[in-house]
């Protein structure tokens, strides 16, 4: 039955759908969903109660936060996307998937990548680029599996038995094409070891490419595929026609064209050139209506089915999901206004915003789809309607607690950071004071997350019992279509015609996402040519580079920014605004996106080495109320000096001006630098012998270099 086609009396072809792969992706969604939520809950707990990392490096916030985001987006989100796409595409195109073999490779390949992430991220192998943390071997694997998926999907389109592509399929095409583009461009990196590489972009270039990727990962992994799913499962579950075909055309094209430009809104008020910031802001604002087009079409499709809200939990999940989509896509443009961003950026407001989208839109849409699909695939009814209702209400309460606590936390802390008194001084100059104020809200958020997880456990139980009690007899789902024949009837005109021409449709789509990408990214690639010539930036010394990689490995960027924005309260608190030149050798950039702790762009030279040493081993010895985890293991692990030659040679290849001697003797130079720091420490405290040559020494060297590498020619500063 591998072709999936049986000839029925010579009149009709019977096409049997491949639902096995759908079931596999569905199981994977549920399994990884539980994992993603549990890791998220652990991370949330650590912010309220730092010892929840059990003092294990593998469970520390900087390492598991990326694990949580990757698991939630690519494991939970990814698997439901694939389940939904394989399930709906076959039915919308009246054909079996192109290749069962490719489907299987896609499934197992994707699960292996997830396992790879599950192992490497806690071990500290990371690119430190958000939602693109995985190191180069996994990046290659993702690209390969994505191509497998694309071949399978476009193959299915090629063998379709209906002429026109439905709007859900347009969204799937947009997803597959754009995610490939984003992933490949953002992941161009040069390996230095099996699980270590440096990106080809540096500083502001890396920041712009990363947030072009990061923003559009939200757009083309958490928005377009889910809109496609919405366009299939909402009308199916409600048994209602789509509200407006015209609206779907307009909002689809405006959405994919405008979305790709909006990335720089993650970099407002930073050192990114003004023109690029303004592009990011205005395109984000123009994105409001196209996003709401999707919400309108989703909600108004439910028109006439509103009475089902009382009786059918699936409709409840779907309606709330679409409503959250509307809320998040209103909040997004709002947060992209420069002045609003100056308040909200780096605070928990952003975390709240993201979770409104992921828990509310992606999560609830996924739950609705699972409850719709399971009875269909296993030819039965859901075991318990009551449990579905409980899941809905508990989950909904969880999202509200999460969202509201993070709003309160973000706005409170943002206002405290901004407050300047009449004397021209910060009202809350002590960073930890602003942390203490919001710490109770971290408990509220934890409770919210816990409720969301408990609701999901109801789903797991409900689905498990449903499948267990399902009829054991194998049933297959099929459709009967007329045999293939050369069909010369009209395919329509205008957009209708385009819907029948899948190749041209895909090419136009590709061009629409390419326009914004090229216009935004290309000018930045030559940006360092235009740096002021009276400013000079020294590359990191070998030991500083080693320390920088420790900083990246521990995920310090998860909680600390290195970007003093062009805002008075940032300048008062942290010093002169950061410049483009200062991060020109930063591969990857470390501008950060969240300040759970203070900015570190100018921390170099601010405190003695001994301060840093004691602070890293136990932050509370220095700052009694600190919520930062302790890093005792750094004082035990030896720095790998030998790899530094390779690291410097790769850096030099990428254009960092190291000379032959530095590259050839990188290990020796680093060891000497470390000895200087160590001698000074040991002279102050004889009991510190064991820290010799440890990663902690390298990290201190790096921290002390921050903000110290750039000097203007006139006022030449000495660099330590």
């Amino acid at each position: 039955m591998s072709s999936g086609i049986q000839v029925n009396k010579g009149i009709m072809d019977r096409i049997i759908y491949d639902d096995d792969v759908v079931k596999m992706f569905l199981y994977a969604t549920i399994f990884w969903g539980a994992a993603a939520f549990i890791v998220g809950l652990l991370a949330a707990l650590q912010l309220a109660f730092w010892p929840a990392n059990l003092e294990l490096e593998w469970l520390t916030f900087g390492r598991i936060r990326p694990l949580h985001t990757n698991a939630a987006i690519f494991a939970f989100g990814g698997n439901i996307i694939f389940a939904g796409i394989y399930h709906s595409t076959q039915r919308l195109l009246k054909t079996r998937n192109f290749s069962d073999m490719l489907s299987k490779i896609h499934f197992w390949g994707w699960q292996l990548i997830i396992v790879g992430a599950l192992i490497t991220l806690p071990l500290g192998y990371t690119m430190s680029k958000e939602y693109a943390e995985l190191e180069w071997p996994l990046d290659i694997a993702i690209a390969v599996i994505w191509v497998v998926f694309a071949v399978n999907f476009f193959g299915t389109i090629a063998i379709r038995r209906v002429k026109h592509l439905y709007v859900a399929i347009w969204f799937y095409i947009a997803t597959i094409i754009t995610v490939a583009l984003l992933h490949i461009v953002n992941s161009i990196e040069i390996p230095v070891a099996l699980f270590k590489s440096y990106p080809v972009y540096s500083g502001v270039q890396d920041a712009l490419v990363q947030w072009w990727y990061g923003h559009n990962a939200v757009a083309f992994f958490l928005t377009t595929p889910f809109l496609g799913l919405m366009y299939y499962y909402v009308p199916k579950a409600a048994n209602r026609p789509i509200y407006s075909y015209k609206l779907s055309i307009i909002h689809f094209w405006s959405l994919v064209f405008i979305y790709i430009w909006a990335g720089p809104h993650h970099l407002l008020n930073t050192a990114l050139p003004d023109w690029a910031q303004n592009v990011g802001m205005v395109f984000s604002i123009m994105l409001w209506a196209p996003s709401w087009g999707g919400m309108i079409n989703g909600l108004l499709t439910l028109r006439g089915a509103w009475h089902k809200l009382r009786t059918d939990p699936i409709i409840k999940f779907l309606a709330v999901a679409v409503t959250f989509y509307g809320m998040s896509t209103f909040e997004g443009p709002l947060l992209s206004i420069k002045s609003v961003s100056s308040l909200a950026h780096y605070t928990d407001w952003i975390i709240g915003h993201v979770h409104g989208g992921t828990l509310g839109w992606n999560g609830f849409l996924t739950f609705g789809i699972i409850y719709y699909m399971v009875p269909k695939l296993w030819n039965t009814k859901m075991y318990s309607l009551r449990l579905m209702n409980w899941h809905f209400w508990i989950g909904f309460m969880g999202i509200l607690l999460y969202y509201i606590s993070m709003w309160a936390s973000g706005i409170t802390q943002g206002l405290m950071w901004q407050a300047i008194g009449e004397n021209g001084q910060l009202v809350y100059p002590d960073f930890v004071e602003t942390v203490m104020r919001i710490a109770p809200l971290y408990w509220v958020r934890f409770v919210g997350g816990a409720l969301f997880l408990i609701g999901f456990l109801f789903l797991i139980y409900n689905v498990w019992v449903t499948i267990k009690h399902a009829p054991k007899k194998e049933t297959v789902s099929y459709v009967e279509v007329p045999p293939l024949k050369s069909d010369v009837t009209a395919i329509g005109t205008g957009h209708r015609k385009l819907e029948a021409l899948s190749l041209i449709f895909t090419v136009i789509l590709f061009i629409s996402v390419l326009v914004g990408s090229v216009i935004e990214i290309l000018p930045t690639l030559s940006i360092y040519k235009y740096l002021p010539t009276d400013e000079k930036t020294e590359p990191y010394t070998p030991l500083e580079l080693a320390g920088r990689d420790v900083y990246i490995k521990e995920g310090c960027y998860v909680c600390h920014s290195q970007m003093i924005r062009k805002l008075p309260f940032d300048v008062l608190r942290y010093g002169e605004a950061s410049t483009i030149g200062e991060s020109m050798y930063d591969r990857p950039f470390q501008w950060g996106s969240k300040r759970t702790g203070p900015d570190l762009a100018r921390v170099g030279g601010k405190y003695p080495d001994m301060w840093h040493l004691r602070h890293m081993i136990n932050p509370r010895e220095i700052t009694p109320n600190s919520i930062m985890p302790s890093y005792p293991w750094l004082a035990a692990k030896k720095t790998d000096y030998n790899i530094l030659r390779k690291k410097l040679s790769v850096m030099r290849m990428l254009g960092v001006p190291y000379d032959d001697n530095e590259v050839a003797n990188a290990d020796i130079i680093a060891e000497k630098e470390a000895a200087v720091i160590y001698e000074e420490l040991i002279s102050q405290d004889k009991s510190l012998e064991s820290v010799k040559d440890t990663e902690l020494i390298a990290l201190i060297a790096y921290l002390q270099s921050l903000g110290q590498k750039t000097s203007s020619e006139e006022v030449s500063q000495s660099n330590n």
Partner: protein
Amino acid sequence: MSEKEKDELLIKGHDYDGIQELNNPLPGWWLMTFYITIVFAVVYYSYYTFFGGPTSDEELAQKMSVIQSEQQIAEESAPVKSADDYVALLDNPEVLEKGKAEYMLKCMACHGDKGQGLIGPNFADEYWIHGDGSVSAILEVANDGVLDKGMPPWKGVIPEETLEAVAVYIYSLQGTNPEGARPPQGEKVERN
């Protein structure tokens, strides 16, 4: 809307796995929102990029100059305290309490919980490295820091009045002879 009307709006030939499509017009308010955001985008972008709107550097410089003049005014109008004024504070238990509380949060890490000195120097003896050990000298070091030695400037981080209380508290530590005190450094200064 009656069933009949709905049927009229369904687009013929649009049937995907049973999903049909209506062809309702674009909602007017939605279209208007879209147009307004586009007009806003064009106007905003043109103003800041092509027609001389202030750059972010200019905006920052302007705001910082206002803040700096505020700082200057505040500094000039602050009452100048004499050595006697500070010494008088020593008798005020509230000031000492406040100074001690802040000391425990910010200074203890380097100077020890009893002022015995750890990374930083000992406050409990009669020897001073920077200045003459008077409250105003201590305050000066606390305000401006000693960057080469790793003492951070606390001006702007600890509010002025609190910092004064800290300096008074430190001044009060002399002669307490705490355990494990660091050996004397600097010059001996006799208090009169």
